[in-house]
């Protein structure tokens, strides 16, 4: 399968009051045609910044892209001018945002908001764009699309609005859809519907999807591959099966342990991950997770581990993979823990 997006060594920082936040520190990954990839991590892990950088939506300043390349469909997006980038946005890459309540313009009818992109990118006439917008609205499951198209966003419920946002994102049949926490702001019952819809649409349109989320639960439902981010770096990647069945990084394990499972014994407690992520104004010298890691070793404090391949599809960034880590694991026991 063809690779549609290839991100290499991406680094993004933000100037804020008090210093420079290294939000994304050398992130590399790729997405194949028709594939659904999840980027998982807690807030501040850099997953949203990564997504917005692909769309070149971060404001510069305060944001700054320091290094790296984002090759999409043979073009490095970072080398494009703003004008050229506008031809990519909405046309070849669509994006869905977190909060449907605020991501639609309250003073414009939903129809116009869908038609805008169509008229710009596909040069459709007003009437053709309207026809297509009605199609799109029915496609995302909004009944009576012909009449609802001239209504304003406040006439729609949260779930319905997210459907409109999806229709906007898919209007021009993009090759890649970036969904930034698309269900976080929705009720649980609506979440499932929206995910179902996205999954169906993906099968119909063969669009690649990058799903940004902090919720491993929805990953299991939707995605082929998982990228786990922590403190601005990728700590583990793998297929859905590998990540859920055979997690290697202590952080990934922690995420899974803090998730309730159906096969869990009644009295088995959920294990939280203690502590808070490091402040990225002063990124840690070693592994970002070491202060919260039960398995931490001395080297974790001082040296950043390399990416290690576990299988053809799974890689992990952890010193525990090092050959020397095995014996010490045996003899240090539990005594060293503070």
């Amino acid at each position, binding site marked *: 399968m063809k690779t549609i997006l290839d991100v290499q060594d991406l680094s993004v920082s933000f100037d804020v009051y*008090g*210093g420079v936040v290294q939000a994304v520190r050398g992130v590399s990954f790729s997405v194949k045609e028709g594939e659904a990839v999840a980027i998982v991590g807690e807030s501040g892990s850099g997953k949203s910044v990564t997504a917005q950088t692909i769309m070149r939506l971060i404001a510069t300043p305060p944001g700054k892209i320091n290094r790296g390349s984002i090759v999409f469909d043979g073009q490095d997006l970072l080398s494009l001018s703003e004008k050229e980038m506008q031809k990519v946005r909405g046309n070849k890459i669509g994006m869905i945002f977190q909060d449907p309540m605020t991501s639609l313009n309250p003073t414009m009818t939903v129809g116009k908001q869908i038609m805008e992109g169509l008229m710009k990118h596909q040069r459709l006439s007003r009437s053709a764009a309207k026809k297509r917008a009605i199609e799109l609205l029915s496609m995302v499951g909004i009944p009576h699309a012909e009449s609802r198209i001239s209504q304003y966003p406040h006439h729609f419920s949260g779930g319905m609005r997210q459907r409109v946002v999806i229709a906007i994102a898919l209007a021009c049949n993009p090759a890649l859809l970036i969904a930034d926490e698309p269900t976080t702001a929705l009720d649980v019952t609506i979440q499932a519907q929206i995910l179902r819809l996205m999954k169906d649409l993906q099968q119909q349109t063969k669009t690649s999807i990058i799903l940004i989320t902090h919720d491993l639960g929805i990953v299991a439902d939707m995605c082929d591959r998982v990228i786990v981010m922590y403190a601005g770096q990728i700590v583990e990647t793998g297929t859905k099966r590998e990540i859920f069945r055979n997690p290697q990084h202590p952080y990934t394990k922690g995420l899974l342990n803090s998730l309730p499972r159906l096969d869990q014994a009644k009295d088995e407690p959920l294990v939280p991950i203690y502590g808070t992520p490091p402040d990225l104004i002063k990124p840690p010298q070693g592994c970002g997770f070491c202060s919260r890691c039960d*398995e931490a070793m*001395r080297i974790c404090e001082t040296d950043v581990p390399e990416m290690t391949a576990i299988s053809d599809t799974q890689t992990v960034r952890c010193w525990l993979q*090092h*050959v*020397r880590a095995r014996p010490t*694991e045996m003899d240090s026991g539990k005594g060293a823990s*503070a």
Partner: protein
Amino acid sequence: MQQEINLNTASNASPDRFMKIGRDPNRAERIERKSLTAWQDIRYRLFANKLAMFGLYLMIAIVLMAIFAPLFSHYNYFSNDLDHTNQAPSFKHWFGTDDLGRDMYVRTWKGAQVSLFVGVVAALIDLFIGIVYGGIMGYFGGKVDEIMNRIAEVLYAIPYLLIVILLLVVMPPSLTTIIVAMSITGWINMAWIVRGQIMQLKNQEYALASKALGAGSFRIIFRHLIPNAMGPILVTLTLTVPGAMFTEAFLSFLGLGVQSPVASWGTMINDGVKAMTVYPWRLLFPALFLSLSMFAFNVFGDGLRDAFDPKLKK
């Protein structure tokens, strides 16, 4: 079987570097950014705003001059000197003299006294009525709030200048009349701000906790809520002053305010306009200082607002 790749990156790593040390809560909770209290933060942002600080210094300078300049001059603001009328600025009369030979320097600062006095007193009256009225509205809510709010709304819709002028028609023109007239509707804005703040704050934990401990309603309003609503109140207060100064100058300009011989920037400007083609300095000084003071208060008020509302700052 796959660890070979790693070996070179830590090839000089001795085995003890792989000793397990585990989770360290001290390292985990370390906070890198220095933390500031709310007031320190506000002060920092205010002091960093050069324009606002310039406004503040200008304000202080004008206030000091208004107080001391007339004291340390051997002229006064009311004595006529018909032998030296309409003199241009000189070492003797720094700002020149007017058509009655009065020293413009002293009169300008006397005008500043009047202007600042009206501005500050009007702002303080607005503050007092606004806090009491708005505090009651916000704290009790419900029917009380609705009725009081309606009253305020009806009053607010009446153009305040008309009220001022109407009052001035039936009362003798004086500083008191101006201030009373301005206060009739001036407090409403402040009341709404206080109301909004209190509505927002009153359901927060500490007000509830205080109530649970048996504190009376008024005690809660004045001891807990007002200090926390300080920011917007202070900003409104600062921005009320230039408005009141303008109104005073406006009324005096029209001959409805302060009466001669007391100096007011408004009357001086009015006199200056008539003479501006021949004696431009008679317009220049009162006009300049009125504008400067309004500039200073506006700029400082803006800075204060930005300092209290960091989301606008970024």
